[in-house]
């Protein structure tokens, strides 16, 4: 009655039975995924236009500055998270990695390391290392990433408390903290957005324009089959976890400087916000589907929606409900649409039946 836990990188919950024509399914999904991206972009445009017309302040440059500042850390983590989820894994420890790198950075600053490049390098290395720990547990030991990263979520956050305890480190040079959120000359938008954009292009190219990217999709669809096509599944997944760790650390550096405060509880609960954004972006939790464009649109949409509603005096409680409902709609919506389309198609016998 009991079955051994799934093999390394083994099937995730509820995957469609193997042996189904992958090519046909991918093609169909590309269509659905494309329309989902389009729907997100339309929703984004609608929210911006409606917000600018109906809510005072949305049209102002300051609004966009605040939205950008809020979106940056989530976007930084969502980029690698998208790739991780596309391979059929998940990383819930990202916010704890962010917190731990914040506290380590703070402690090093207290110990007198006053070179910002050194601090950033150490933080990124630490993040990569923490990600590598996740990667080893998942790929070398063959453990489910959901369970592993729930474990490291607790572990890394706990270590953050061990490092700084109840202290907060806040006495960074004002040049660093204002520098981190400084605007692009002539604009109000912070320059960090350029870094995010460059990274987004890098991750986008990696995912959509390289054999590695195609391999990631293959892994998410069927790890077993991916292995036969010559992709080194374990190695690719390992490096994705490392990248996620490093990107979370980068978000941690930004967080520390933006809020001028390193605390053990920095970014607590952010993992759910990131996962919610990635899933709303049309990435399937089972892997194999989703595009970076959709994820970026979703991250921006959530950020703008939140700020517009806040400006429109919508209380925090309602914002929570809306976030949850959006997430549910993002998975239920496409399925309902597909069902309705199938029913319509069956009524018209002339139409060619979809290949099952």
């Amino acid at each position: 009655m009991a079955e051994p836990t799934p093999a390394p990188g083994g099937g995730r919950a509820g995957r469609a039975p193997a042996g189904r024509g992958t090519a046909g399914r991918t093609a169909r999904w590309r269509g659905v995924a494309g329309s989902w991206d389009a729907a997100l972009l339309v929703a984004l445009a609608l929210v911006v236009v409606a917000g600018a017309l109906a809510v005072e302040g949305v049209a102002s440059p300051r609004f966009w500055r605040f939205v950008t500042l809020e979106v940056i850390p989530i976007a930084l983590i969502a980029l690698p998270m998208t790739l991780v989820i596309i391979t059929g894994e998940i990383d819930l420890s990202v916010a704890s990695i962010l917190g731990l790198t914040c506290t380590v950075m703070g402690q090093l600053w207290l110990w007198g390391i006053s070179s910002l490049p050194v601090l950033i390098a150490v933080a990124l290395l630490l993040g990569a290392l923490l990600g590598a720990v996740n990667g080893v547990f998942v790929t070398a030991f063959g453990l489910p990433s959901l369970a592993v990263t729930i474990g490291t979520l607790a572990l890394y956050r706990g270590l953050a408390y061990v490092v700084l305890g109840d202290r907060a480190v806040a006495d960074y040079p004002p040049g660093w903290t204002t520098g981190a959120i400084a605007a692009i000359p002539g604009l109000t938008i912070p320059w960090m957005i350029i870094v995010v954009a460059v990274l987004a292009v890098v991750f986008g190219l990696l995912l959509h324009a390289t054999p590695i990217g195609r391999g990631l999709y293959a892994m998410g669809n069927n790890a077993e089959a991916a292995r036969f096509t010559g992709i080194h599944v374990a190695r690719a997944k390992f490096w994705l976890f490392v990248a996620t760790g490093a990107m979370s650390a980068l978000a941690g550096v930004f967080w520390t400087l933006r809020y001028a405060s390193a605390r053990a509880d920095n970014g607590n609960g952010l993992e759910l916000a990131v996962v919610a954004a990635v899933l709303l972006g049309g990435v399937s939790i089972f892997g194999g589907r989703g595009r970076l464009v959709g994820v970026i649109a979703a991250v921006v949409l959530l950020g703008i929606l939140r700020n517009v509603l806040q400006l429109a005096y919508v209380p925090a409680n309602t914002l929570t409900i809306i976030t949850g409902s959006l997430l549910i709609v993002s998975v239920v919506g496409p399925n309902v649409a597909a069902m309705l389309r199938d029913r319509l198609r069956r009524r018209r016998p002339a139409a060619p039946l979809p290949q099952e």
Partner: protein
Amino acid sequence: MSARIRGGRAVALALLTALTLAAAGCAGEEPATTAGQPAAGGGAKTIKEGLKIAFLPKQVNNPYFDASDNKGGKVAVEEVKGVYSQTGPSEASPSAQVSYINTLSQQGADVIVVSANDKDAICGALQEARTAGAKVVTYDSDTNPSCRDVFINQASAEGIAASQVKLISEAVGPDGGEIAILSATANATNQNAWIAMMKTELAKPEHGRLKLVATVYGDDDDQKSFQEAQGLLAKHPNLKGIISPTTVGVAAAARYLSGSEYKGKVQLTGLGTPNQMRAYVKDGTVKSFALWNPSDLGYLAAYAGGALASGLITGKEGEKFTAGRLGEYTVGKDGVVLLGDPFVFTKDNIDEFDF
């Protein structure tokens, strides 16, 4: 796969989705802007009318801030014919608070009354809001003095620490013994300041028989505080008293003690609200505890904000302003306005209060 799904299921599904959405739709609250009512206090004449005074607590859904904002601040704002609002995150995190500060600033708030989740993390946002024309009043938990105009201090750290140590010393009795502190979160600015002062106070010779053996953190979470209280007694068999300078912690500890064999043997004091503590004061678990009146705190903060925005004060030491029914206050060093000494509640006076 989808072809197999029957029509009924699709309809049920659509209904479920609609229900979820409807629930989301009807949950909205009307904006908390209220038209001004006739001024009650004569001293408010010089404060401008129509000021937008916004309260930003550490978190909404917290009874303490409900009392300070909606039962104190709101009354004062109505007295000065201003526009009151309360907004804030549902979890007490500095980053969420920053987002709300930015929003308030864009909404053109004249006064932001804020209880800081972190004394540095919200500084940048407050500075931006001040540049945009808002006056900033902190209450309950302060930021760096450079980031706000005035801080309404519910009670000085020295005052609180001295009162807490005095209460536990009286409760434990002349023989003294081991005591412990049950605090809120490990990062709470005010808690840590009070604990540091309590340690100074305990080092004085008159409290030589009291020995502080542990400080634990209940994270201002009822269940965690309850378990921490339980853990303290398991770890320290000779414990004679607990100080819990947080409303959540002291209520949880009282509830644990009153349902355990330690009731009456281990003394408890702290900062609590009369409504939460009434049952435990009456059943003898707690002899006395202290608190300021949170409604007075919010009330004073609103008046201070009004005075700032009307140019009556600037936050300099020695300036005076009148706060309605509370009378006249003087701005102290570093822009601090002191509400007063903490009030001590006992079995004899607790029924006179309802908050």
